[in-house]
Protein backbone atom coordinates (compact mmCIF):
# COMPACT_ATOMS: atom_id res chain seq x y z
CA UNK A 1 0.00 0.00 0.00
CA UNK A 2 1.41 3.34 -1.08
CA UNK A 3 0.01 6.57 0.26
CA UNK A 4 1.22 10.00 -0.74
CA UNK A 5 -0.33 13.07 0.75
CA UNK A 6 0.31 16.71 -0.13
CA UNK A 7 3.90 16.11 -1.19
CA UNK A 8 5.83 19.22 -2.24
CA UNK A 9 9.33 19.48 -3.61
CA UNK A 10 11.07 22.56 -4.97
CA UNK A 11 14.45 22.86 -6.64
CA UNK A 12 16.63 25.93 -6.86
CA UNK A 13 17.73 26.48 -10.42
CA UNK A 14 20.37 28.95 -11.51
CA UNK A 15 19.36 31.23 -14.38
CA UNK A 16 21.24 33.55 -16.59
CA UNK A 17 20.65 35.09 -20.00
CA UNK A 18 22.88 34.43 -22.97
CA UNK A 19 26.04 36.35 -23.67
CA UNK A 20 29.40 37.30 -22.27
CA UNK A 21 28.15 40.38 -20.45
CA UNK A 22 25.58 38.33 -18.57
CA UNK A 23 28.19 35.69 -17.75
CA UNK A 24 30.38 38.37 -16.16
CA UNK A 25 27.48 39.88 -14.28
CA UNK A 26 26.57 36.57 -12.73
CA UNK A 27 30.07 36.34 -11.25
CA UNK A 28 28.85 38.89 -8.74
CA UNK A 29 25.14 38.30 -8.62
CA UNK A 30 23.52 34.95 -9.05
CA UNK A 31 19.88 34.63 -9.91
CA UNK A 32 17.97 31.63 -8.73
CA UNK A 33 14.47 30.52 -9.49
CA UNK A 34 12.45 28.17 -7.40
CA UNK A 35 11.02 25.40 -9.52
CA UNK A 36 8.08 23.56 -8.09
CA UNK A 37 8.73 20.01 -9.20
CA UNK A 38 5.91 18.62 -7.08
CA UNK A 39 3.09 20.80 -5.88
CA UNK A 40 0.64 19.12 -3.52
CA UNK A 41 0.75 15.62 -4.96
CA UNK A 42 -1.54 13.02 -3.38
CA UNK A 43 -2.51 9.53 -4.46
CA UNK A 44 -2.89 6.00 -3.11
CA UNK A 45 -1.89 2.78 -4.82
CA UNK A 46 -3.01 -0.64 -3.61
CA UNK A 47 -1.03 -3.88 -3.51
CA UNK A 48 -0.69 -5.66 -6.83
CA UNK A 49 -1.71 -2.73 -9.01
CA UNK A 50 0.07 -1.67 -12.17
CA UNK A 51 0.03 2.11 -12.45
CA UNK A 52 1.35 4.22 -15.27
CA UNK A 53 2.57 7.60 -14.36
CA UNK A 54 2.48 9.83 -17.41
CA UNK A 55 3.14 13.44 -18.22
CA UNK A 56 5.33 15.63 -20.43
CA UNK A 57 9.06 16.12 -19.81
CA UNK A 58 9.74 17.94 -16.58
CA UNK A 59 6.31 17.24 -15.16
CA UNK A 60 7.65 15.70 -11.96
CA UNK A 61 7.52 11.99 -12.79
CA UNK A 62 11.11 11.17 -11.87
CA UNK A 63 10.95 13.32 -8.76
CA UNK A 64 7.96 11.31 -7.58
CA UNK A 65 9.75 8.03 -8.23
CA UNK A 66 12.80 9.29 -6.36
CA UNK A 67 10.73 10.27 -3.36
CA UNK A 68 8.92 6.95 -3.38
CA UNK A 69 12.20 5.08 -3.55
CA UNK A 70 13.70 6.97 -0.63
CA UNK A 71 16.34 8.87 -2.59
CA UNK A 72 14.90 12.36 -2.27
CA UNK A 73 13.43 14.05 0.76
CA UNK A 74 10.36 16.17 -0.03
CA UNK A 75 9.97 19.67 1.44
CA UNK A 76 6.65 18.80 3.03
CA UNK A 77 3.86 16.24 2.97
CA UNK A 78 3.41 12.67 4.12
CA UNK A 79 4.24 9.44 2.41
CA UNK A 80 3.86 5.96 3.86
CA UNK A 81 4.66 2.78 1.97
CA UNK A 82 3.80 -0.47 3.71
CA UNK A 83 4.09 1.27 7.04
CA UNK A 84 7.44 2.98 6.35
CA UNK A 85 8.37 6.54 5.47
CA UNK A 86 10.80 6.08 2.55
CA UNK A 87 13.33 8.82 3.34
CA UNK A 88 13.27 8.20 7.08
CA UNK A 89 13.45 4.41 7.10
CA UNK A 90 15.53 4.32 3.92
CA UNK A 91 17.46 1.12 4.62
CA UNK A 92 14.40 -0.91 5.60
CA UNK A 93 12.27 0.50 2.83
CA UNK A 94 14.66 0.00 -0.06
CA UNK A 95 15.21 -3.63 0.89
CA UNK A 96 11.59 -4.25 -0.18
CA UNK A 97 11.58 -2.39 -3.48
CA UNK A 98 13.21 -2.78 -6.86
CA UNK A 99 14.07 0.18 -9.08
CA UNK A 100 15.04 0.46 -12.73
CA UNK A 101 16.13 3.82 -14.12
CA UNK A 102 16.03 3.39 -17.89
CA UNK A 103 18.68 6.03 -18.45
CA UNK A 104 21.18 4.73 -15.92
CA UNK A 105 22.90 1.46 -15.20
CA UNK A 106 23.14 -0.46 -11.96
CA UNK A 107 25.42 -3.18 -13.36
CA UNK A 108 29.15 -2.92 -12.89
CA UNK A 109 30.64 -1.86 -16.18
CA UNK A 110 33.79 -3.96 -16.40
CA UNK A 111 32.71 -7.26 -14.89
CA UNK A 112 30.38 -10.03 -16.10
CA UNK A 113 26.70 -9.49 -15.32
CA UNK A 114 26.58 -12.54 -13.06
CA UNK A 115 29.11 -10.92 -10.71
CA UNK A 116 26.82 -7.90 -10.34
CA UNK A 117 23.93 -10.26 -9.60
CA UNK A 118 25.88 -12.02 -6.89
CA UNK A 119 26.80 -8.70 -5.35
CA UNK A 120 23.10 -7.80 -5.28
CA UNK A 121 22.34 -11.17 -3.71
CA UNK A 122 24.69 -10.32 -0.84
CA UNK A 123 23.45 -6.74 -0.53
CA UNK A 124 19.85 -7.87 -0.16
CA UNK A 125 20.82 -10.95 1.85
CA UNK A 126 18.95 -13.33 -0.44
CA UNK A 127 19.69 -16.90 0.58
CA UNK A 128 21.44 -19.09 -1.93
CA UNK A 129 18.51 -21.38 -2.73
CA UNK A 130 16.08 -18.60 -3.38
CA UNK A 131 18.70 -16.74 -5.37
CA UNK A 132 19.22 -19.72 -7.67
CA UNK A 133 15.47 -20.16 -8.05
CA UNK A 134 14.97 -16.52 -8.97
CA UNK A 135 17.94 -16.49 -11.26
CA UNK A 136 16.69 -19.56 -13.14
CA UNK A 137 13.27 -18.05 -13.53
CA UNK A 138 14.59 -14.66 -14.67
CA UNK A 139 17.08 -16.27 -17.02
CA UNK A 140 14.35 -18.28 -18.71
CA UNK A 141 11.87 -15.43 -18.98
CA UNK A 142 14.28 -12.75 -20.15
CA UNK A 143 16.60 -15.03 -22.15
CA UNK A 144 19.71 -14.10 -20.25
CA UNK A 145 21.69 -17.31 -20.63
CA UNK A 146 24.50 -16.07 -22.87
CA UNK A 147 24.44 -12.59 -21.37
CA UNK A 148 25.27 -13.53 -17.81
CA UNK A 149 28.93 -14.23 -18.43
CA UNK A 150 29.46 -11.12 -20.58
CA UNK A 151 30.84 -7.88 -19.15
CA UNK A 152 28.17 -5.15 -19.08
CA UNK A 153 30.18 -2.89 -21.38
CA UNK A 154 29.78 -5.38 -24.23
CA UNK A 155 25.99 -5.71 -24.06
CA UNK A 156 23.64 -3.92 -26.45
CA UNK A 157 21.10 -1.55 -24.92
CA UNK A 158 18.28 -4.07 -25.23
CA UNK A 159 20.35 -6.86 -23.69
CA UNK A 160 21.48 -4.59 -20.92
CA UNK A 161 17.95 -3.45 -20.12
CA UNK A 162 16.84 -7.07 -19.75
CA UNK A 163 19.70 -7.62 -17.32
CA UNK A 164 18.84 -4.39 -15.47
CA UNK A 165 15.28 -5.55 -14.96
CA UNK A 166 16.43 -8.97 -13.78
CA UNK A 167 18.87 -7.26 -11.39
CA UNK A 168 16.08 -5.27 -9.77
CA UNK A 169 14.03 -8.42 -9.11
CA UNK A 170 16.64 -10.72 -7.59
CA UNK A 171 15.39 -10.04 -4.08
CA UNK A 172 11.65 -10.49 -4.82
CA UNK A 173 10.68 -6.86 -4.18
CA UNK A 174 7.06 -6.18 -3.36
CA UNK A 175 7.08 -2.96 -5.34
CA UNK A 176 8.84 -2.37 -8.64
CA UNK A 177 9.56 1.14 -9.89
CA UNK A 178 10.30 1.42 -13.58
CA UNK A 179 11.46 4.83 -14.74
CA UNK A 180 11.30 4.78 -18.56
CA UNK A 181 12.28 1.11 -18.89
CA UNK A 182 11.67 0.91 -22.65
CA UNK A 183 13.57 4.04 -23.67
CA UNK A 184 15.65 3.39 -26.77
CA UNK A 185 14.62 -0.26 -27.12
CA UNK A 186 13.70 -1.97 -30.37
CA UNK A 187 10.26 -3.51 -30.96
CA UNK A 188 11.21 -7.02 -29.90
CA UNK A 189 12.89 -5.93 -26.67
CA UNK A 190 9.98 -3.65 -25.84
CA UNK A 191 7.51 -6.49 -26.20
CA UNK A 192 9.70 -8.78 -24.11
CA UNK A 193 9.93 -6.20 -21.33
CA UNK A 194 6.16 -5.57 -21.34
CA UNK A 195 5.32 -9.28 -21.27
CA UNK A 196 7.73 -9.84 -18.48
CA UNK A 197 6.42 -7.01 -16.33
CA UNK A 198 2.85 -8.27 -16.76
CA UNK A 199 3.85 -11.79 -15.82
CA UNK A 200 5.76 -10.61 -12.78
CA UNK A 201 2.71 -8.69 -11.64
CA UNK A 202 0.34 -11.59 -12.22
CA UNK A 203 2.41 -14.38 -10.74
CA UNK A 204 4.15 -12.61 -7.86
CA UNK A 205 1.61 -9.90 -7.13
CA UNK A 206 4.33 -7.27 -7.50
CA UNK A 207 3.03 -3.72 -7.45
CA UNK A 208 4.41 -1.91 -10.50
CA UNK A 209 4.76 1.82 -10.92
CA UNK A 210 5.92 2.85 -14.30
CA UNK A 211 6.82 6.13 -15.97
CA UNK A 212 7.06 6.24 -19.72
CA UNK A 213 6.46 8.40 -22.77
CA UNK A 214 5.54 5.37 -24.82
CA UNK A 215 1.74 5.22 -25.04
CA UNK A 216 1.95 1.62 -26.22
CA UNK A 217 3.66 0.69 -22.94
CA UNK A 218 0.77 2.21 -21.07
CA UNK A 219 -1.82 0.53 -23.26
CA UNK A 220 -0.15 -2.86 -22.85
CA UNK A 221 0.43 -2.68 -19.12
CA UNK A 222 -1.67 -0.42 -17.07
CA UNK A 223 -5.28 -0.36 -16.09
CA UNK A 224 -4.73 2.78 -14.13
CA UNK A 225 -3.09 5.96 -15.37
CA UNK A 226 -2.05 8.95 -13.32
CA UNK A 227 -1.38 12.11 -15.31
CA UNK A 228 0.93 14.73 -13.85
CA UNK A 229 1.78 18.16 -15.25
CA UNK A 230 3.66 21.08 -13.74
CA UNK A 231 3.94 19.17 -10.49
CA UNK A 232 0.21 18.57 -10.03
CA UNK A 233 -1.94 15.49 -10.48
CA UNK A 234 -4.37 16.33 -13.28
CA UNK A 235 -6.07 13.03 -13.91
CA UNK A 236 -6.29 9.71 -12.14
CA UNK A 237 -8.22 7.15 -14.15
CA UNK A 238 -8.03 4.74 -17.06
CA UNK A 239 -6.83 4.95 -20.64
CA UNK A 240 -10.43 5.49 -21.72
CA UNK A 241 -10.48 8.64 -19.62
CA UNK A 242 -7.34 9.85 -21.37
CA UNK A 243 -8.90 9.23 -24.80
CA UNK A 244 -12.16 10.91 -23.82
CA UNK A 245 -10.49 13.97 -22.30
CA UNK A 246 -7.96 14.16 -25.11
CA UNK A 247 -10.72 13.94 -27.70
CA UNK A 248 -9.18 11.23 -29.84
CA UNK A 249 -9.25 7.46 -30.19
CA UNK A 250 -5.56 7.40 -31.03
CA UNK A 251 -3.44 7.28 -27.88
CA UNK A 252 -0.62 9.54 -29.08
CA UNK A 253 -3.12 12.09 -30.38
CA UNK A 254 -5.15 11.92 -27.20
CA UNK A 255 -2.10 12.44 -24.99
CA UNK A 256 -0.87 15.38 -27.09
CA UNK A 257 -4.38 16.86 -27.16
CA UNK A 258 -4.67 16.49 -23.43
CA UNK A 259 -1.28 18.10 -22.77
CA UNK A 260 -2.28 21.05 -24.94
CA UNK A 261 -5.73 21.33 -23.42
CA UNK A 262 -4.32 21.36 -19.89
CA UNK A 263 -1.56 23.72 -20.99
CA UNK A 264 1.25 21.54 -19.63
CA UNK A 265 3.12 20.73 -22.84
Amino acid at each position, binding site marked *: MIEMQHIRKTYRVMRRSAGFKEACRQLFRREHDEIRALDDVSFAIGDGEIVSYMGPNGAGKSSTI*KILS*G*ILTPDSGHCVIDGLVPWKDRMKH*VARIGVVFGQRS*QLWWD*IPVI*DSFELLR*DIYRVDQRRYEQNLDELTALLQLEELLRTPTRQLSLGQRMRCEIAASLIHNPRILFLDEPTIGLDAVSKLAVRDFVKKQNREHGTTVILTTHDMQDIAALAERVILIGRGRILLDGTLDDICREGGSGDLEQAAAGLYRKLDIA
Partner: protein
Amino acid sequence: MKKYLSFFRVRFAMGLQYRTAAIAGMTTQFVWGLMEILVFRAFYADNPAAFPMTFEATANYIWLQQAFLAVFAAWLIEPEIFDCIVDGNVAYELCRPVNIYDMWFSRSMASRLSRVLLRCIPILMIAPLVPKPYGISLPPSAGQFLVFLLTLALSFLVSVSFYMWIYVLTFYTVSPLGLRLMVGSVVEFLSGGGIPLPFFPEKVRRFLEILPFASMQNVPLRVYSGSMTPGETQRAILLQIFWLVVLAAAGRAMCARAVRHVTLQGG
Protein backbone atom coordinates in the same frame (compact mmCIF):
# COMPACT_ATOMS: atom_id res chain seq x y z
CA MET B 1 29.07 -6.93 7.19
CA LYS B 2 28.81 -9.53 4.46
CA LYS B 3 27.52 -7.04 1.92
CA TYR B 4 30.51 -4.79 2.45
CA LEU B 5 32.81 -7.77 2.09
CA SER B 6 31.10 -8.50 -1.21
CA PHE B 7 31.72 -4.97 -2.40
CA PHE B 8 35.31 -5.43 -1.40
CA ARG B 9 35.56 -8.72 -3.28
CA VAL B 10 33.98 -7.44 -6.49
CA ARG B 11 36.11 -4.30 -6.58
CA PHE B 12 39.24 -6.26 -5.69
CA ALA B 13 38.64 -8.80 -8.46
CA MET B 14 37.95 -5.98 -10.87
CA GLY B 15 41.23 -4.27 -9.97
CA LEU B 16 43.17 -7.44 -10.63
CA GLN B 17 41.99 -7.70 -14.22
CA TYR B 18 43.80 -4.61 -15.51
CA ARG B 19 47.10 -6.30 -16.36
CA THR B 20 48.59 -3.73 -18.69
CA ALA B 21 47.91 -0.95 -16.21
CA ALA B 22 49.71 -2.97 -13.55
CA ILE B 23 52.79 -3.51 -15.70
CA ALA B 24 52.86 0.15 -16.73
CA GLY B 25 52.42 1.28 -13.14
CA MET B 26 55.13 -1.03 -11.89
CA THR B 27 57.61 0.18 -14.48
CA THR B 28 56.81 3.82 -13.75
CA GLN B 29 57.27 3.32 -10.04
CA PHE B 30 60.56 1.51 -10.53
CA VAL B 31 62.06 4.13 -12.83
CA TRP B 32 60.69 6.95 -10.71
CA GLY B 33 62.25 5.46 -7.59
CA LEU B 34 65.59 5.06 -9.30
CA MET B 35 65.55 8.65 -10.54
CA GLU B 36 64.62 10.01 -7.15
CA ILE B 37 67.46 8.10 -5.53
CA LEU B 38 69.91 9.48 -8.10
CA VAL B 39 68.75 13.02 -7.39
CA PHE B 40 69.27 12.49 -3.68
CA ARG B 41 72.71 10.99 -4.40
CA ALA B 42 73.74 14.24 -6.03
CA PHE B 43 72.72 16.15 -2.90
CA TYR B 44 74.38 13.68 -0.57
CA ALA B 45 77.60 13.75 -2.63
CA ASP B 46 77.88 17.44 -1.84
CA ASN B 47 77.69 17.06 1.95
CA PRO B 48 76.32 13.85 3.54
CA ALA B 49 76.42 15.39 7.03
CA ALA B 50 73.87 18.02 6.06
CA PHE B 51 71.00 15.51 5.99
CA PRO B 52 68.85 14.23 8.83
CA MET B 53 68.62 10.69 7.41
CA THR B 54 71.45 8.47 6.16
CA PHE B 55 71.56 7.82 2.43
CA GLU B 56 70.60 4.16 2.98
CA ALA B 57 67.57 5.21 5.03
CA THR B 58 66.52 7.62 2.29
CA ALA B 59 66.87 4.90 -0.37
CA ASN B 60 64.73 2.57 1.75
CA TYR B 61 62.18 5.33 2.19
CA ILE B 62 61.93 5.88 -1.55
CA TRP B 63 61.67 2.20 -2.51
CA LEU B 64 58.95 1.51 0.02
CA GLN B 65 57.14 4.61 -1.08
CA GLN B 66 57.13 3.40 -4.67
CA ALA B 67 56.12 -0.14 -3.72
CA PHE B 68 53.22 0.95 -1.53
CA LEU B 69 52.25 4.06 -3.46
CA ALA B 70 48.68 2.84 -3.95
CA VAL B 71 48.21 2.74 -0.18
CA PHE B 72 48.32 6.50 0.17
CA ALA B 73 48.51 8.18 -3.26
CA ALA B 74 45.99 11.00 -3.66
CA TRP B 75 45.58 10.48 -7.39
CA LEU B 76 44.23 6.98 -6.89
CA ILE B 77 40.83 8.26 -5.84
CA GLU B 78 38.05 6.19 -7.43
CA PRO B 79 36.84 8.06 -10.53
CA GLU B 80 33.64 5.97 -10.65
CA ILE B 81 32.49 7.41 -7.35
CA PHE B 82 32.91 10.98 -8.60
CA ASP B 83 31.22 10.13 -11.87
CA CYS B 84 28.23 8.63 -10.15
CA ILE B 85 27.75 11.73 -8.00
CA VAL B 86 28.28 14.15 -10.89
CA ASP B 87 25.99 12.39 -13.38
CA GLY B 88 23.40 11.29 -10.83
CA ASN B 89 23.98 7.55 -11.02
CA VAL B 90 24.33 7.68 -7.26
CA ALA B 91 20.54 7.28 -7.38
CA TYR B 92 21.09 3.56 -7.74
CA GLU B 93 23.47 3.41 -4.79
CA LEU B 94 20.94 5.29 -2.69
CA CYS B 95 18.17 2.81 -3.35
CA ARG B 96 20.14 -0.09 -1.90
CA PRO B 97 19.94 -1.18 1.71
CA VAL B 98 23.53 -0.17 2.39
CA ASN B 99 25.28 2.65 4.18
CA ILE B 100 26.86 4.72 1.41
CA TYR B 101 29.88 5.63 3.50
CA ASP B 102 30.69 2.05 4.48
CA MET B 103 30.13 0.87 0.94
CA TRP B 104 32.50 3.42 -0.58
CA PHE B 105 34.99 2.84 2.18
CA SER B 106 35.23 -0.88 1.44
CA ARG B 107 35.31 -0.14 -2.24
CA SER B 108 38.22 2.31 -1.92
CA MET B 109 40.07 -0.14 0.26
CA ALA B 110 39.65 -2.89 -2.31
CA SER B 111 40.75 -0.82 -5.29
CA ARG B 112 43.85 0.37 -3.46
CA LEU B 113 44.74 -3.06 -2.16
CA SER B 114 44.41 -4.69 -5.57
CA ARG B 115 46.77 -2.09 -6.98
CA VAL B 116 49.25 -2.50 -4.17
CA LEU B 117 49.27 -6.24 -4.54
CA LEU B 118 50.04 -6.11 -8.24
CA ARG B 119 52.74 -3.48 -7.89
CA CYS B 120 54.55 -4.03 -4.62
CA ILE B 121 55.67 -7.63 -5.10
CA PRO B 122 57.78 -7.06 -8.23
CA ILE B 123 59.29 -3.87 -6.83
CA LEU B 124 60.09 -5.52 -3.50
CA MET B 125 61.71 -8.39 -5.40
CA ILE B 126 63.90 -6.24 -7.62
CA ALA B 127 64.83 -3.42 -5.24
CA PRO B 128 66.92 -5.64 -2.88
CA LEU B 129 69.03 -6.68 -5.88
CA VAL B 130 70.03 -3.09 -6.58
CA PRO B 131 73.58 -2.71 -5.17
CA LYS B 132 74.10 -1.00 -1.82
CA PRO B 133 73.52 1.78 -0.86
CA TYR B 134 70.99 2.34 -3.62
CA GLY B 135 68.84 -0.71 -2.95
CA ILE B 136 66.44 -1.63 -0.19
CA SER B 137 67.79 -3.35 2.92
CA LEU B 138 66.16 -5.70 5.42
CA PRO B 139 64.54 -4.01 8.43
CA PRO B 140 66.75 -3.88 11.55
CA SER B 141 64.71 -6.57 13.37
CA ALA B 142 61.61 -8.75 13.08
CA GLY B 143 59.94 -6.63 15.76
CA GLN B 144 60.65 -3.50 13.78
CA PHE B 145 59.11 -5.16 10.73
CA LEU B 146 55.90 -5.96 12.63
CA VAL B 147 55.66 -2.37 13.80
CA PHE B 148 56.14 -1.34 10.18
CA LEU B 149 53.22 -3.54 9.08
CA LEU B 150 51.03 -2.10 11.84
CA THR B 151 51.81 1.50 10.92
CA LEU B 152 51.36 0.69 7.24
CA ALA B 153 47.89 -0.74 7.91
CA LEU B 154 47.01 2.33 9.97
CA SER B 155 48.28 4.73 7.33
CA PHE B 156 46.17 2.85 4.79
CA LEU B 157 43.03 3.35 6.88
CA VAL B 158 43.83 6.99 7.63
CA SER B 159 44.40 7.63 3.90
CA VAL B 160 41.11 6.02 2.88
CA SER B 161 39.15 7.93 5.52
CA PHE B 162 40.80 11.16 4.46
CA TYR B 163 39.97 10.65 0.79
CA MET B 164 36.40 9.70 1.72
CA TRP B 165 36.01 13.35 2.64
CA ILE B 166 36.58 14.32 -0.97
CA TYR B 167 33.80 12.03 -2.15
CA VAL B 168 31.43 13.41 0.46
CA LEU B 169 32.31 17.03 -0.37
CA THR B 170 31.61 16.30 -4.04
CA PHE B 171 27.91 16.17 -3.11
CA TYR B 172 28.17 19.89 -2.41
CA THR B 173 30.14 21.03 -5.45
CA VAL B 174 29.29 21.15 -9.15
CA SER B 175 32.56 19.54 -10.23
CA PRO B 176 35.06 17.62 -8.10
CA LEU B 177 38.03 18.55 -10.28
CA GLY B 178 39.30 21.56 -8.32
CA LEU B 179 39.07 19.71 -5.04
CA ARG B 180 40.91 16.70 -6.43
CA LEU B 181 43.76 18.73 -7.89
CA MET B 182 44.20 20.84 -4.81
CA VAL B 183 44.04 17.97 -2.37
CA GLY B 184 46.37 15.95 -4.58
CA SER B 185 49.24 18.41 -4.42
CA VAL B 186 48.69 19.50 -0.83
CA VAL B 187 48.59 15.93 0.48
CA GLU B 188 51.57 14.90 -1.61
CA PHE B 189 53.68 17.70 -0.17
CA LEU B 190 52.55 17.61 3.45
CA SER B 191 52.65 13.83 3.85
CA GLY B 192 56.27 13.49 2.84
CA GLY B 193 55.54 12.33 -0.68
CA GLY B 194 57.89 14.76 -2.41
CA ILE B 195 60.64 14.88 0.18
CA PRO B 196 60.66 12.98 3.48
CA LEU B 197 59.35 15.04 6.39
CA PRO B 198 62.67 15.02 8.35
CA PHE B 199 64.12 17.14 5.52
CA PHE B 200 61.83 20.04 6.44
CA PRO B 201 63.06 22.81 8.79
CA GLU B 202 62.70 21.81 12.44
CA LYS B 203 59.70 24.00 13.35
CA VAL B 204 57.79 23.21 10.17
CA ARG B 205 58.50 19.51 10.60
CA ARG B 206 57.15 19.45 14.16
CA PHE B 207 53.95 21.05 12.98
CA LEU B 208 53.59 18.80 9.93
CA GLU B 209 54.06 15.66 12.01
CA ILE B 210 50.90 16.43 13.98
CA LEU B 211 48.73 16.84 10.87
CA PRO B 212 46.84 13.81 9.51
CA PHE B 213 48.99 13.85 6.36
CA ALA B 214 52.05 12.63 8.24
CA SER B 215 49.97 9.70 9.49
CA MET B 216 49.15 8.80 5.93
CA GLN B 217 52.62 8.17 4.54
CA ASN B 218 55.56 9.44 6.56
CA VAL B 219 55.20 7.13 9.57
CA PRO B 220 55.47 3.60 8.11
CA LEU B 221 58.23 4.56 5.69
CA ARG B 222 60.36 5.97 8.49
CA VAL B 223 59.61 3.11 10.86
CA TYR B 224 60.97 0.63 8.35
CA SER B 225 64.27 2.39 7.89
CA GLY B 226 64.61 2.72 11.67
CA SER B 227 64.93 6.48 11.64
CA MET B 228 62.45 6.96 14.49
CA THR B 229 63.07 6.35 18.21
CA PRO B 230 60.69 3.94 20.01
CA GLY B 231 59.17 6.92 21.85
CA GLU B 232 58.53 8.75 18.58
CA THR B 233 57.07 5.61 17.03
CA GLN B 234 54.66 5.14 19.90
CA ARG B 235 53.49 8.71 19.69
CA ALA B 236 53.11 8.42 15.93
CA ILE B 237 50.94 5.29 16.24
CA LEU B 238 48.65 6.95 18.78
CA LEU B 239 48.36 9.93 16.46
CA GLN B 240 47.46 7.64 13.57
CA ILE B 241 44.69 6.02 15.61
CA PHE B 242 43.46 9.46 16.67
CA TRP B 243 43.23 10.72 13.09
CA LEU B 244 41.59 7.52 11.89
CA VAL B 245 38.82 7.80 14.47
CA VAL B 246 38.29 11.53 13.93
CA LEU B 247 38.34 11.45 10.13
CA ALA B 248 36.15 8.37 9.81
CA ALA B 249 33.57 9.33 12.43
CA ALA B 250 33.18 12.89 11.18
CA GLY B 251 33.19 11.76 7.55
CA ARG B 252 30.48 9.21 8.19
CA ALA B 253 28.28 11.80 9.91
CA MET B 254 28.90 14.28 7.11
CA CYS B 255 28.01 11.67 4.52
CA ALA B 256 24.71 10.87 6.21
CA ARG B 257 23.91 14.59 6.17
CA ALA B 258 24.83 14.94 2.51
CA VAL B 259 22.63 12.00 1.55
CA ARG B 260 19.62 13.59 3.23
CA HIS B 261 20.11 16.84 1.33
CA VAL B 262 21.10 15.37 -1.96
CA THR B 263 19.77 16.73 -5.22
CA LEU B 264 20.39 14.45 -8.14
CA GLN B 265 21.94 15.96 -11.21
CA GLY B 266 20.86 15.17 -14.73
CA GLY B 267 17.18 14.23 -14.28
